[in-house]
Protein backbone atom coordinates (compact mmCIF):
# COMPACT_ATOMS: atom_id res chain seq x y z
CA UNK A 1 0.00 0.00 0.00
CA UNK A 2 1.48 3.36 -1.07
CA UNK A 3 1.64 6.19 1.42
CA UNK A 4 -0.17 9.45 0.54
CA UNK A 5 3.16 11.14 -0.12
CA UNK A 6 4.29 8.41 -2.51
CA UNK A 7 0.95 8.43 -4.30
CA UNK A 8 1.17 12.21 -4.79
CA UNK A 9 4.68 11.82 -6.18
CA UNK A 10 3.58 9.10 -8.62
CA UNK A 11 0.59 11.23 -9.62
CA UNK A 12 2.77 14.23 -10.41
CA UNK A 13 5.06 12.06 -12.50
CA UNK A 14 2.11 10.59 -14.38
CA UNK A 15 0.64 14.03 -15.14
CA UNK A 16 4.03 15.37 -16.25
CA UNK A 17 4.40 12.37 -18.57
CA UNK A 18 0.97 13.07 -20.09
CA UNK A 19 1.88 16.75 -20.61
CA UNK A 20 5.16 15.79 -22.31
CA UNK A 21 3.43 13.32 -24.65
CA UNK A 22 0.76 15.87 -25.58
CA UNK A 23 3.39 18.56 -26.14
CA UNK A 24 5.42 16.35 -28.44
CA UNK A 25 2.30 15.67 -30.51
CA UNK A 26 1.50 19.41 -30.65
CA UNK A 27 5.05 20.54 -31.47
CA UNK A 28 6.16 17.87 -33.87
CA UNK A 29 2.90 17.51 -35.81
CA UNK A 30 2.69 13.82 -34.94
CA UNK A 31 -0.49 11.81 -35.43
CA UNK A 32 -2.71 13.03 -32.53
CA UNK A 33 -4.34 9.62 -32.31
CA UNK A 34 -1.08 8.32 -30.85
CA UNK A 35 -2.38 9.74 -27.56
CA UNK A 36 -4.92 7.58 -25.75
CA UNK A 37 -7.21 10.34 -24.52
CA UNK A 38 -9.52 8.05 -22.49
CA UNK A 39 -6.65 6.53 -20.58
CA UNK A 40 -5.14 9.93 -19.88
CA UNK A 41 -8.45 11.32 -18.64
CA UNK A 42 -8.82 8.29 -16.34
CA UNK A 43 -5.34 8.97 -14.94
CA UNK A 44 -6.20 12.63 -14.34
CA UNK A 45 -9.45 11.59 -12.61
CA UNK A 46 -7.68 8.95 -10.54
CA UNK A 47 -5.22 11.39 -9.01
CA UNK A 48 -7.51 14.38 -8.71
CA UNK A 49 -8.71 13.58 -5.12
CA UNK A 50 -5.07 13.59 -3.98
CA UNK A 51 -4.43 17.22 -4.88
CA UNK A 52 -4.63 19.72 -2.06
CA UNK A 53 -2.00 22.37 -2.79
CA UNK A 54 -2.46 24.98 -5.59
CA UNK A 55 0.67 23.79 -7.49
CA UNK A 56 -0.81 20.31 -7.90
CA UNK A 57 -4.17 21.72 -8.95
CA UNK A 58 -2.36 23.85 -11.54
CA UNK A 59 -0.57 20.75 -12.83
CA UNK A 60 -3.95 19.01 -13.07
CA UNK A 61 -5.41 21.96 -15.04
CA UNK A 62 -2.37 22.10 -17.32
CA UNK A 63 -2.70 18.39 -18.07
CA UNK A 64 -6.36 18.83 -18.97
CA UNK A 65 -5.45 21.79 -21.16
CA UNK A 66 -2.91 19.74 -23.12
CA UNK A 67 -5.28 16.77 -23.44
CA UNK A 68 -7.92 19.20 -24.77
CA UNK A 69 -5.38 20.51 -27.32
CA UNK A 70 -4.77 16.96 -28.50
CA UNK A 71 -8.54 16.42 -28.84
CA UNK A 72 -8.71 19.61 -30.92
CA UNK A 73 -5.87 18.28 -33.11
CA UNK A 74 -7.71 14.98 -33.48
CA UNK A 75 -10.78 16.92 -34.64
CA UNK A 76 -8.71 18.85 -37.17
CA UNK A 77 -7.08 15.64 -38.35
CA UNK A 78 -10.47 14.00 -38.98
CA UNK A 79 -11.75 17.15 -40.70
CA UNK A 80 -8.67 17.36 -42.92
CA UNK A 81 -8.88 13.69 -43.91
CA UNK A 82 -12.54 14.11 -44.83
CA UNK A 83 -11.89 17.10 -47.09
CA UNK A 84 -10.92 16.97 -50.71
CA UNK A 85 -7.54 18.50 -49.84
CA UNK A 86 -6.39 15.31 -48.12
CA UNK A 87 -3.80 13.22 -49.86
CA UNK A 88 -1.17 10.84 -48.65
CA UNK A 89 1.83 13.08 -47.81
CA UNK A 90 4.21 10.28 -48.74
CA UNK A 91 2.60 9.84 -52.15
CA UNK A 92 2.71 13.58 -52.80
CA UNK A 93 6.32 13.80 -51.61
CA UNK A 94 7.31 11.04 -54.01
CA UNK A 95 5.42 12.73 -56.83
CA UNK A 96 7.18 16.02 -56.19
CA UNK A 97 10.57 14.32 -56.15
CA UNK A 98 9.90 12.53 -59.44
CA UNK A 99 8.84 15.67 -61.34
CA UNK A 100 11.37 17.83 -63.17
CA UNK A 101 11.58 21.55 -62.46
CA UNK A 102 9.86 22.30 -65.76
CA UNK A 103 6.99 19.91 -65.01
CA UNK A 104 6.51 21.38 -61.54
CA UNK A 105 6.37 24.91 -62.95
CA UNK A 106 3.96 23.85 -65.71
CA UNK A 107 1.70 22.36 -63.05
CA UNK A 108 1.97 25.26 -60.67
CA UNK A 109 1.14 27.97 -63.20
CA UNK A 110 -2.18 26.23 -63.86
CA UNK A 111 -3.19 26.81 -60.23
CA UNK A 112 -1.50 30.17 -59.75
CA UNK A 113 -3.37 33.44 -60.21
CA UNK A 114 -0.88 36.19 -59.30
CA UNK A 115 -2.08 39.45 -57.84
CA UNK A 116 -2.20 42.46 -60.16
CA UNK A 117 -0.52 45.45 -58.55
CA UNK A 118 0.49 48.63 -60.26
CA UNK A 119 2.58 51.58 -59.26
CA UNK A 120 2.19 54.72 -61.31
CA UNK A 121 2.89 58.34 -60.83
CA UNK A 122 -0.05 60.76 -60.99
CA UNK A 123 -0.26 64.49 -61.72
CA UNK A 124 -1.23 65.11 -58.11
CA UNK A 125 1.78 63.23 -56.72
CA UNK A 126 4.07 65.02 -59.23
CA UNK A 127 2.76 68.39 -58.00
CA UNK A 128 3.34 67.36 -54.37
CA UNK A 129 6.83 66.11 -55.18
CA UNK A 130 7.71 69.36 -56.96
CA UNK A 131 6.59 71.41 -53.96
CA UNK A 132 8.68 69.20 -51.71
CA UNK A 133 11.72 69.61 -53.98
CA UNK A 134 11.40 73.38 -53.94
CA UNK A 135 11.37 73.47 -50.14
CA UNK A 136 14.19 70.97 -49.78
CA UNK A 137 17.49 72.38 -48.50
CA UNK A 138 20.66 71.56 -50.48
CA UNK A 139 22.37 68.39 -49.32
CA UNK A 140 25.49 70.33 -48.23
CA UNK A 141 23.34 72.15 -45.66
CA UNK A 142 21.43 69.11 -44.49
CA UNK A 143 24.36 66.76 -44.15
CA UNK A 144 27.37 68.48 -42.75
CA UNK A 145 30.24 66.22 -43.67
CA UNK A 146 31.63 64.37 -40.75
CA UNK A 147 34.93 62.50 -40.75
CA UNK A 148 34.39 58.76 -40.93
CA UNK A 149 34.07 57.22 -37.50
CA UNK A 150 37.23 55.56 -36.30
CA UNK A 151 36.77 51.84 -35.93
CA UNK A 152 38.91 50.13 -33.36
CA UNK A 153 40.11 46.62 -33.94
CA UNK A 154 39.17 44.01 -31.39
CA UNK A 155 38.22 40.40 -30.97
CA UNK A 156 34.75 38.91 -30.58
CA UNK A 157 33.70 35.63 -29.08
CA UNK A 158 31.06 33.39 -30.60
CA UNK A 159 28.68 34.29 -27.73
CA UNK A 160 29.06 37.99 -28.52
CA UNK A 161 28.32 37.34 -32.19
CA UNK A 162 25.22 35.39 -31.17
CA UNK A 163 24.08 38.30 -29.03
CA UNK A 164 24.60 40.71 -31.92
CA UNK A 165 22.60 38.38 -34.20
CA UNK A 166 25.58 37.98 -36.49
CA UNK A 167 25.49 34.25 -35.94
CA UNK A 168 22.37 32.17 -35.69
CA UNK A 169 21.69 30.06 -32.66
CA UNK A 170 22.02 26.78 -34.50
CA UNK A 171 24.34 23.99 -33.51
CA UNK A 172 27.67 25.37 -34.66
CA UNK A 173 28.79 22.12 -36.27
CA UNK A 174 25.55 21.99 -38.28
CA UNK A 175 26.03 25.55 -39.39
CA UNK A 176 29.63 24.81 -40.35
CA UNK A 177 28.56 21.72 -42.31
CA UNK A 178 25.99 23.74 -44.24
CA UNK A 179 28.57 26.40 -44.95
CA UNK A 180 31.05 23.79 -46.18
CA UNK A 181 28.38 22.37 -48.49
CA UNK A 182 27.68 25.86 -49.77
CA UNK A 183 31.39 26.40 -50.50
CA UNK A 184 31.68 23.14 -52.39
CA UNK A 185 28.58 23.91 -54.48
CA UNK A 186 29.87 27.39 -55.16
CA UNK A 187 33.28 26.11 -56.26
CA UNK A 188 31.64 23.48 -58.43
CA UNK A 189 29.52 26.13 -60.12
CA UNK A 190 31.84 29.09 -60.37
CA UNK A 191 35.28 27.93 -59.34
CA UNK A 192 38.29 26.99 -61.38
CA UNK A 193 40.64 24.10 -60.56
CA UNK A 194 38.62 23.43 -57.42
CA UNK A 195 39.16 26.86 -55.87
CA UNK A 196 37.50 30.26 -55.76
CA UNK A 197 38.77 33.77 -54.93
CA UNK A 198 38.36 34.36 -51.20
CA UNK A 199 36.45 37.63 -51.59
CA UNK A 200 34.00 36.32 -54.14
CA UNK A 201 32.99 33.67 -51.62
CA UNK A 202 32.81 35.74 -48.47
CA UNK A 203 31.40 38.96 -49.90
CA UNK A 204 27.71 39.38 -49.19
CA UNK A 205 25.05 41.95 -49.90
CA UNK A 206 25.83 43.79 -46.66
CA UNK A 207 29.00 44.36 -44.71
CA UNK A 208 27.53 42.48 -41.71
CA UNK A 209 26.86 39.45 -43.88
CA UNK A 210 30.41 39.62 -45.26
CA UNK A 211 31.91 39.65 -41.75
CA UNK A 212 29.77 36.70 -40.77
CA UNK A 213 30.85 34.74 -43.85
CA UNK A 214 34.52 35.58 -43.22
CA UNK A 215 34.12 34.39 -39.63
CA UNK A 216 32.61 31.09 -40.73
CA UNK A 217 35.27 30.68 -43.44
CA UNK A 218 38.01 31.03 -40.84
CA UNK A 219 36.49 28.03 -39.02
CA UNK A 220 36.28 26.03 -42.25
CA UNK A 221 40.04 26.50 -42.68
CA UNK A 222 40.93 25.96 -39.01
CA UNK A 223 38.93 22.75 -38.71
CA UNK A 224 40.21 21.25 -41.98
CA UNK A 225 37.14 21.64 -44.18
CA UNK A 226 39.03 23.88 -46.60
CA UNK A 227 42.40 25.46 -47.17
CA UNK A 228 43.68 28.85 -48.28
CA UNK A 229 45.96 29.31 -51.26
CA UNK A 230 47.85 32.58 -51.09
CA UNK A 231 49.66 34.18 -54.02
CA UNK A 232 51.58 37.01 -52.32
CA UNK A 233 52.96 38.60 -55.49
CA UNK A 234 49.59 38.85 -57.18
CA UNK A 235 47.98 39.67 -53.84
CA UNK A 236 45.40 36.97 -54.43
CA UNK A 237 43.85 34.63 -51.91
CA UNK A 238 41.88 31.57 -52.95
CA UNK A 239 39.80 29.25 -50.86
CA UNK A 240 39.82 25.59 -51.76
CA UNK A 241 37.32 23.17 -50.14
CA UNK A 242 38.35 19.63 -49.29
CA UNK A 243 36.07 16.85 -50.46
CA UNK A 244 36.57 15.10 -47.12
CA UNK A 245 37.36 16.54 -43.75
CA UNK A 246 41.17 16.78 -43.41
CA UNK A 247 42.26 15.99 -39.90
CA UNK A 248 46.03 16.30 -40.43
CA UNK A 249 46.10 19.50 -38.50
CA UNK A 250 47.92 17.86 -35.64
CA UNK A 251 50.88 16.85 -37.86
CA UNK A 252 51.68 20.37 -39.01
CA UNK A 253 52.40 23.50 -37.20
CA UNK A 254 49.38 25.74 -37.54
CA UNK A 255 49.95 29.12 -39.12
CA UNK A 256 47.56 31.93 -38.42
CA UNK A 257 46.75 34.02 -41.50
CA UNK A 258 45.22 37.39 -40.70
CA UNK A 259 42.96 38.72 -43.46
CA UNK A 260 41.48 42.17 -43.01
CA UNK A 261 37.78 42.41 -43.89
CA UNK A 262 37.26 46.15 -43.70
CA UNK A 263 34.33 48.21 -44.92
CA UNK A 264 36.62 49.78 -47.53
CA UNK A 265 37.66 46.38 -48.89
CA UNK A 266 34.07 45.29 -49.02
CA UNK A 267 32.99 48.45 -50.84
CA UNK A 268 35.90 48.10 -53.27
CA UNK A 269 34.84 44.55 -53.98
CA UNK A 270 31.21 45.61 -54.47
CA UNK A 271 32.23 48.29 -56.97
CA UNK A 272 34.57 45.91 -58.74
CA UNK A 273 31.86 43.30 -59.03
CA UNK A 274 29.36 45.75 -60.41
CA UNK A 275 31.71 46.91 -63.15
Amino acid at each position, binding site marked *: MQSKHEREKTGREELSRIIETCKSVEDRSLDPFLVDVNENISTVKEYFPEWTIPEDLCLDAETLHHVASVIRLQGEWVRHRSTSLY*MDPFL*LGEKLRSLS*KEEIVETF*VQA*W*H*PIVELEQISLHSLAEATAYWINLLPISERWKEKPPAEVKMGSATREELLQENILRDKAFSEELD*NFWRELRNYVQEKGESGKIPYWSFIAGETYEETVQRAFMTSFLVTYGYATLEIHPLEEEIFIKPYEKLETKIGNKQLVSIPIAVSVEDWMKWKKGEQH
Partner: protein
Amino acid sequence: MSKRKVIYASKLKRATHLLFYKRHTKPGVKGWELRKALGSDYPKVLKLLDDHLKALDLQVKTVFEEEKAVEKPSLEQLDRARHFITLRGDITPKEAKMVGWRIDDLAGLAITISYIISQKGKATRKEVEDMLRDKLPGWKVCLNIDRYIRYGYLTQDENEQLYLDWRTRAEVDQKALIDLVLAK
Protein backbone atom coordinates in the same frame (compact mmCIF):
# COMPACT_ATOMS: atom_id res chain seq x y z
CA MET B 1 -28.24 57.32 -67.95
CA SER B 2 -30.21 57.03 -64.70
CA LYS B 3 -28.85 58.66 -61.56
CA ARG B 4 -28.33 55.23 -60.01
CA LYS B 5 -26.24 54.08 -62.97
CA VAL B 6 -24.12 57.23 -62.79
CA ILE B 7 -23.45 56.64 -59.10
CA TYR B 8 -22.41 53.02 -59.68
CA ALA B 9 -20.22 53.94 -62.66
CA SER B 10 -18.38 56.42 -60.47
CA LYS B 11 -18.04 53.86 -57.65
CA LEU B 12 -16.69 51.31 -60.15
CA LYS B 13 -13.96 53.74 -61.20
CA ARG B 14 -13.05 54.49 -57.62
CA ALA B 15 -12.93 50.77 -56.75
CA THR B 16 -10.69 50.14 -59.77
CA HIS B 17 -8.25 52.80 -58.62
CA LEU B 18 -8.21 51.46 -55.08
CA LEU B 19 -7.75 47.85 -56.06
CA PHE B 20 -5.29 48.12 -58.93
CA TYR B 21 -2.85 50.59 -57.45
CA LYS B 22 -0.67 49.63 -54.54
CA ARG B 23 -1.41 51.83 -51.55
CA HIS B 24 0.31 49.98 -48.71
CA THR B 25 3.28 47.66 -48.40
CA LYS B 26 0.91 44.79 -48.96
CA PRO B 27 -1.18 44.88 -52.12
CA GLY B 28 -4.97 44.86 -51.95
CA VAL B 29 -7.46 46.80 -49.92
CA LYS B 30 -9.20 45.94 -46.66
CA GLY B 31 -13.01 45.76 -46.74
CA TRP B 32 -13.41 48.58 -44.25
CA GLU B 33 -11.31 50.86 -46.47
CA LEU B 34 -13.61 50.08 -49.39
CA ARG B 35 -16.66 50.75 -47.20
CA LYS B 36 -15.20 54.11 -46.26
CA ALA B 37 -14.52 55.05 -49.89
CA LEU B 38 -17.50 53.47 -51.65
CA GLY B 39 -20.19 53.13 -49.03
CA SER B 40 -21.80 50.15 -47.35
CA ASP B 41 -22.86 48.64 -50.69
CA TYR B 42 -19.23 48.03 -51.65
CA PRO B 43 -19.77 44.23 -51.96
CA LYS B 44 -22.17 45.00 -54.81
CA VAL B 45 -19.59 47.31 -56.43
CA LEU B 46 -16.99 44.54 -56.16
CA LYS B 47 -19.42 42.10 -57.80
CA LEU B 48 -19.99 44.56 -60.68
CA LEU B 49 -16.26 45.11 -61.06
CA ASP B 50 -15.68 41.36 -61.09
CA ASP B 51 -18.20 41.02 -63.93
CA HIS B 52 -16.43 43.76 -65.87
CA LEU B 53 -13.02 42.15 -65.32
CA LYS B 54 -14.16 38.75 -66.59
CA ALA B 55 -13.58 39.83 -70.19
CA LEU B 56 -10.00 40.80 -69.31
CA ASP B 57 -9.28 37.47 -67.60
CA LEU B 58 -8.99 39.20 -64.23
CA GLN B 59 -11.06 38.81 -61.07
CA VAL B 60 -11.72 40.35 -57.69
CA LYS B 61 -10.39 37.95 -55.08
CA THR B 62 -11.34 38.14 -51.42
CA VAL B 63 -9.09 36.62 -48.77
CA PHE B 64 -10.69 36.26 -45.36
CA GLU B 65 -8.89 36.52 -42.07
CA GLU B 66 -10.00 32.99 -41.32
CA GLU B 67 -7.74 30.50 -43.05
CA LYS B 68 -10.52 28.88 -45.03
CA ALA B 69 -12.82 30.50 -47.57
CA VAL B 70 -16.18 31.60 -46.18
CA GLU B 71 -19.20 30.58 -48.22
CA LYS B 72 -21.67 33.28 -47.19
CA PRO B 73 -19.60 35.99 -45.56
CA SER B 74 -21.16 38.53 -43.24
CA LEU B 75 -20.50 42.23 -43.80
CA GLU B 76 -18.22 42.12 -40.76
CA GLN B 77 -16.15 39.30 -42.26
CA LEU B 78 -15.96 41.18 -45.56
CA ASP B 79 -14.82 44.32 -43.74
CA ARG B 80 -11.95 42.42 -42.15
CA ALA B 81 -11.06 40.59 -45.38
CA ARG B 82 -8.51 41.85 -47.92
CA HIS B 83 -9.61 42.28 -51.52
CA PHE B 84 -7.26 41.93 -54.50
CA ILE B 85 -7.31 41.85 -58.27
CA THR B 86 -5.83 38.59 -59.52
CA LEU B 87 -5.56 36.78 -62.80
CA ARG B 88 -8.73 34.73 -63.43
CA GLY B 89 -7.24 32.14 -65.78
CA ASP B 90 -3.75 30.71 -65.75
CA ILE B 91 -0.48 31.85 -67.26
CA THR B 92 2.15 29.98 -69.23
CA PRO B 93 5.62 29.28 -67.78
CA LYS B 94 6.95 31.82 -70.31
CA GLU B 95 4.66 34.49 -68.91
CA ALA B 96 5.71 33.58 -65.38
CA LYS B 97 9.22 34.54 -66.42
CA MET B 98 7.89 37.91 -67.52
CA VAL B 99 6.40 38.62 -64.09
CA GLY B 100 9.85 38.32 -62.60
CA TRP B 101 10.21 34.69 -61.56
CA ARG B 102 13.08 32.37 -62.47
CA ILE B 103 12.04 28.80 -63.18
CA ASP B 104 14.11 27.49 -60.23
CA ASP B 105 12.48 29.88 -57.78
CA LEU B 106 8.97 29.19 -59.02
CA ALA B 107 9.53 25.42 -58.90
CA GLY B 108 10.83 25.82 -55.33
CA LEU B 109 7.73 27.78 -54.40
CA ALA B 110 5.45 25.16 -55.97
CA ILE B 111 7.20 22.35 -54.08
CA THR B 112 7.12 24.25 -50.80
CA ILE B 113 3.42 25.09 -51.04
CA SER B 114 2.45 21.55 -52.13
CA TYR B 115 4.50 20.01 -49.35
CA ILE B 116 3.01 22.27 -46.67
CA ILE B 117 -0.52 21.52 -47.90
CA SER B 118 0.22 17.80 -47.70
CA GLN B 119 1.40 18.27 -44.10
CA LYS B 120 -1.96 19.79 -43.09
CA GLY B 121 -0.81 23.36 -43.45
CA LYS B 122 2.43 23.34 -41.49
CA ALA B 123 5.88 21.82 -41.89
CA THR B 124 9.22 22.34 -40.24
CA ARG B 125 11.65 24.56 -42.13
CA LYS B 126 14.22 21.77 -42.05
CA GLU B 127 11.88 19.33 -43.82
CA VAL B 128 11.16 21.89 -46.52
CA GLU B 129 14.86 22.70 -46.88
CA ASP B 130 15.69 19.00 -47.28
CA MET B 131 12.98 18.66 -49.90
CA LEU B 132 14.26 21.67 -51.88
CA ARG B 133 17.92 20.69 -51.52
CA ASP B 134 17.10 17.65 -53.63
CA LYS B 135 16.90 19.85 -56.72
CA LEU B 136 18.26 23.27 -55.83
CA PRO B 137 21.81 24.22 -54.81
CA GLY B 138 22.12 24.28 -51.02
CA TRP B 139 23.11 27.94 -50.76
CA LYS B 140 19.96 28.95 -52.62
CA VAL B 141 17.52 26.99 -50.51
CA CYS B 142 17.65 29.22 -47.44
CA LEU B 143 17.60 32.39 -49.52
CA ASN B 144 14.56 31.18 -51.44
CA ILE B 145 12.57 30.27 -48.34
CA ASP B 146 13.34 33.68 -46.84
CA ARG B 147 12.18 35.26 -50.08
CA TYR B 148 8.89 33.31 -50.07
CA ILE B 149 8.35 34.52 -46.50
CA ARG B 150 9.14 38.12 -47.46
CA TYR B 151 6.69 38.05 -50.36
CA GLY B 152 3.91 36.73 -48.08
CA TYR B 153 3.62 33.20 -49.49
CA LEU B 154 4.83 31.65 -46.24
CA THR B 155 5.10 32.59 -42.62
CA GLN B 156 7.39 31.15 -39.99
CA ASP B 157 6.93 30.90 -36.23
CA GLU B 158 9.54 30.90 -33.47
CA ASN B 159 9.83 27.09 -33.65
CA GLU B 160 10.86 27.32 -37.33
CA GLN B 161 7.53 25.90 -38.46
CA LEU B 162 6.39 27.12 -41.88
CA TYR B 163 2.76 27.91 -42.68
CA LEU B 164 1.00 29.21 -45.79
CA ASP B 165 0.45 32.95 -45.64
CA TRP B 166 -1.95 35.50 -47.13
CA ARG B 167 -0.43 35.62 -50.63
CA THR B 168 -0.75 31.87 -51.13
CA ARG B 169 -4.37 32.10 -50.00
CA ALA B 170 -4.92 34.92 -52.49
CA GLU B 171 -3.05 33.51 -55.47
CA VAL B 172 -2.98 29.74 -55.34
CA ASP B 173 -5.89 27.39 -55.91
CA GLN B 174 -4.63 24.83 -53.43
CA LYS B 175 -6.99 22.03 -54.36
CA ALA B 176 -6.28 22.43 -58.07
CA LEU B 177 -2.53 22.40 -57.39
CA ILE B 178 -2.67 19.12 -55.45
CA ASP B 179 -4.96 17.51 -58.02
CA LEU B 180 -2.63 18.57 -60.82
CA VAL B 181 0.50 17.30 -59.05
CA LEU B 182 -1.11 13.95 -58.31
CA ALA B 183 -2.39 13.65 -61.88
CA LYS B 184 1.11 14.12 -63.36
